[in-house]
């Protein structure tokens, strides 16, 4: 019983573990229904009906898709590096899930035993943590693409990696100009400042635009889906993958989309703040639930915009992508940073 003798707050640990389990399963379910939404939105934009066989309005389609992926034959190419071939999708999934640790999902619940924060960890460098995990996300693609031992996969992995690195720069600088305004790196503080006040989008419209474009690129979503450009690279970095390992890659893209929508809502659109409603006077439990609903509503809007863009715009060419990142977004983000810094300095004087 040496473990129990440790000086630990077991109730606290258990509470956090339960919260982690809930958040991970909710993210998975949301990612599942994002695939359904994607097909419905695509169908709607292309004047089709979309999935409508499994259940009413095709609502069980994601379950059928998941079952299909699970039962497909699992193929590991002979010439591949077996360990890394399996590690690739695991890493992609893990980095996609890790980001949700610092997101404040809503205000604290209270059942009479003190407040229960709906956030796994309120660390004082929340934004940097997210940035760090995002920069690790590239390993899933690179390792998977290389371990497949396939020219197309390797090319796609290289493309993906250089794309992610290039757009991280502009994204980081957009975040710096946001931090000038907020003065804090903790996501909880950033949301707290926006509640009842102006949302950060008013102070940082250009920063948001840059952040949004970079988020599209970081998620490998169209028009930045060069790593899986099917017309030139067959299927890109996951060409050799089958069964649930392919499912993990596809799934991690949807989780990334969900998490980046949450982050954009948190950083620029007030997080769980409900506009024009004062939640401070409400019952804390009611306020927390309403706040969560408000956050999710903002997230759904972002996810819809992501899909709207995907089904409206054609894919960039590779040189256009690099030009946009290095010659368009990066200077723009730098100008935004300098102007924001100057204005903040001027107002504080």
């Amino acid at each position, binding site marked *: 019983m040496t473990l129990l003798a440790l000086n630990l707050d077991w109730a606290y640990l258990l509470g956090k573990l339960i919260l982690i389990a809930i958040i991970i399963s909710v993210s998975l379910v949301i990612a599942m229904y994002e695939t359904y939404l994607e097909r419905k939105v695509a169908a709607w934009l292309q004047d089709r009906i979309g999935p409508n066989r499994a259940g009413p309005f095709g609502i069980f389609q994601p379950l059928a898709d998941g079952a299909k992926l699970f039962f497909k034959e699992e193929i590991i190419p002979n010439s591949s590096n077996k360990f*890394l071939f399996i590690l690739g999708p695991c890493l992609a999934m893990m980095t996609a899930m890790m980001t949700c640790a610092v997101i404040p999902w809503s205000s604290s619940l209270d059942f009479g035993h003190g407040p229960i924060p709906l956030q796994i960890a309120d660390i*004082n*460098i929340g934004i*940097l943590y997210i940035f760090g995990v995002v920069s690790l996300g590239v390993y899933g693609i*690179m390792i998977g693409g*290389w371990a497949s031992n396939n020219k197309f996969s390797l090319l796609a992995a290289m493309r993906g990696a250089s794309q992610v690195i290039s757009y991280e720069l502009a994204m980081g600088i957009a975040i710096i100009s946001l931090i000038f305004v907020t003065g804090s790196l903790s996501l909880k503080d950033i949301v707290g400042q926006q509640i009842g006040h102006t949302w950060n989008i008013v102070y940082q419209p250009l920063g948001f635009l840059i952040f949004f474009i970079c988020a599209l690129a970081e998620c490998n979503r169209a028009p930045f889906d060069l790593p899986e450009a099917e017309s030139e690279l067959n299927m890109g970095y996951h060409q050799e993958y089958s069964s649930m390992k392919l499912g993990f890659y596809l799934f991690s893209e949807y989780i990334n989309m969900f998490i980046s929508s949450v982050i954009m809502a948190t950083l620029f659109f007030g997080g769980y703040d409900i506009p024009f409603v004062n939640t401070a006077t409400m019952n804390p439990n009611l306020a927390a639930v309403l706040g969560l609903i408000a956050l999710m509503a903002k997230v759904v809007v972002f996810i819809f915009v992501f899909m709207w863009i995907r089904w409206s715009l054609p894919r960039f060419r590779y040189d256009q992508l690099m030009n946009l990142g290095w010659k368009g977004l990066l200077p723009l983000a730098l100008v935004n940073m300098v102007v924001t810094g100057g204005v903040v300095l001027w107002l504080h004087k």
Partner: protein
Amino acid sequence: MSIIEIFFWLLSGLAIFSAIMVLISKNPVHSVLWLIVVFFAISGHYILLNAQFLAIVNLIVYAGAIMVLFLFVIMLMNLNADADPQKNVWLKVIGIVTGGLLLTVLVSAVRSSNDLVNRSAELKTGSIGLIKSLGITLFNEYTVPFELSSILFLSAMVGAVVIGKKE
């Protein structure tokens, strides 16, 4: 044993094990991946010392950027285990001896250093690794070295672009 001690031994073991794996892996891509594990273990040590900012910057800069470039180069070079040149046995022995001597010198220098004698690590209490105090120290006491190093970085970047540019 406190929880911090357990984490310390786990992370130290992980760091040393993966550092050894970096050296003995035949496949260069595996070496790079083990090196990333080393950086994670060191970041864990930073967190134990209450230096969260340093921990995450270590991850962003080394694991997130530099190692990606390493992987880039190694994956495109397509190195094989059999293409590895065979080294002379005597060369290996000499390498081990000089490396061991260097280690002894370093360990004794660190152990007898004035900054370390009769000092212990600040666990969970020190504040220099937090972003606020680090920023204040950097931009007040060390402004000139900080600016000089950024100029150095800038000139290195310009140099790399000039060298890499095709005429």
